[in-house]
């Protein structure tokens, strides 16, 4: 349902043309949790932006259900950026319901859905708080809720937990897993952390250094929820690390 065909992206800089993605081809099925794993600055984020239609590819094409992504609401997408980017003048509920407001859904219905998803993410009671009144981890939860609430056909996540401390990150990873198991979505999750990739993904696509090309495409068959200190998890991590070296 999501198809990348020879996607190529380069930026023109003063020093010449900088190729960030080279000949990326992949096919992603509905309901997969795909983790794009690669070193920092390898073009993973650009790939997500192209998938969302925020930027065009230089060559090649991205097809969502057979059509190129466009921003005019034909494809419902969710995007969780690296920083939560909550609007400080909106309380948590109206941050979460931004996408429903854009779709002109009635306020009562918007709020009903927001309360439900905030509860799933452990934020009940904080509906009327403003972003500056809550912690960094809570902001990230709200950003995830904002993307999830529009019931996207694809959820794109660009290293959403990279700025968090280890403890908060773990609890968010758990909650994302819970949420994903309850409401299955196609997710493309970008990270440079192998452990995070194994913890969350049903499939790991490893990208090399810039320009991004596929080095390995691996199906993770561990049962969910995954335990990072379990034997199977540790073994798999060693195996993958060995393959990457």
């Amino acid at each position, binding site marked *: 349902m999501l198809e990348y065909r020879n996607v190529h992206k380069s930026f023109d800089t003063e020093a010449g043309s900088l190729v960030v993605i080279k000949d990326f081809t992949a096919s992603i099925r509905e309901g997969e949790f795909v983790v794009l794993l690669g070193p920092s600055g390898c073009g993973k984020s650009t790939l997500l932006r192209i998938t969302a239609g925020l930027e065009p590819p230089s060559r090649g094409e991205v097809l969502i259900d057979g059509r190129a992504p466009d921003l005019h609401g034909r494809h419902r997408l969710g995007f969780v950026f690296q920083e939560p980017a909550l609007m400080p003048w909106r309380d948590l509920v109206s941050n979460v319901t931004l996408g429903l407001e854009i779709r002109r859904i009635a306020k009562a219905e918007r709020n009903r859905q927001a309360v439900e998803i905030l509860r799933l993410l452990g934020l009940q009671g904080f509906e009327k708080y*403003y972003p500056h009144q809550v912690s960094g981890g809570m902001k990230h939860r709200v950003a995830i809720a904002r993307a999830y609430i529009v019931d996207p056909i694809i959820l794109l996540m660009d290293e959403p937990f990279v700025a968090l401390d280890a403890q908060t990150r773990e609890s968010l990873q758990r909650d994302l897993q819970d949420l994903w198991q309850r409401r299955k979505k196609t997710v493309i999750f970008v990270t440079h952390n192998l452990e995070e990739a194994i913890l969350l993904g049903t499939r790991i696509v490893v990208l090399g250094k810039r320009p991004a090309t596929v080095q390995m495409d691996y199906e993770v068959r561990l049962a969910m929820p995954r335990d990072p200190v379990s034997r199977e998890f540790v073994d798999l991590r060693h195996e993958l690390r060995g393959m990457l070296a």
Partner: protein
Amino acid sequence: MAKMREVEPVVEIGEMTAAVSRERVQKLSRDRRRVIGFNSLSLLLFLLLWEGSSRLLHSVFFPGPLVVSRTFVVLLVEGDIQGYTLPYHAYVSLYRVLLGFGAACLTAIPLGIILGLWRPVYFGTRVVSEPLRFIPPLAWIPMAILFFSGLGRYVFLIWVGVFFPLFILTMNGVSTASPTFVDVARVLGASRSFIALRIIIPNALPQIVGAMRAVMSPAWMCIVAAEMVAAELVGLGQLINNYATLLRMDIVIVGMISIGILGLLLNEALMAVERALFRYRQEVKV
């Protein structure tokens, strides 16, 4: 089991937030007391220095705060030679300033928003707008005298002095909106008008109100200059000008201080509006 895990950390966070805000409130009232203390002290020091240097100089052209405050009371109660009291002078000037300032807000802010959203128009008209911007308001006085009379003249001169800084500051506030906010809305399918009205303008509002506060001082500069060249008898600028020719420096200083106090009050009022509207903006402390 999964449920327990969800709820646990958040209760903790909630309690922490409450504790932090309690502590913050206590700290605020402590800070406020300190600020009031320091300001009383610096006012006292200023008055002492002024009185001392006035006595040292011993000149009729440099009266100290004691003489000036006696004059202040006389002007307040009895008024000047023409019988106009100080509050009346202040009221007339304030009225003119607020009209000119309002006219500038009504024109500069919408134009700044439009051109901030539509930068090519600004860049395409810079050859006209930039030179205009650099003409000091005082250079407009001859034009103002020829083409306007009465209240219109004052309003025009204040408008000229306030319009450009307000326009530029508004435009910059609008055009520096966070690109991620815009991306968030675009991915969710927002139209251009939704992004402009619901994302970019609310995001720029604190900067726009800040700009309104910043242009208060050029507004006062313009009104005093305008009143000094006009033929009318009332207004703080006129008060200063009239008594300067009579070398009554005590009255001149009363006029100057009145402008300072009015400016301070307007500034505080706008700051209160800012605080009420933009509670989400945290002050940065270094």
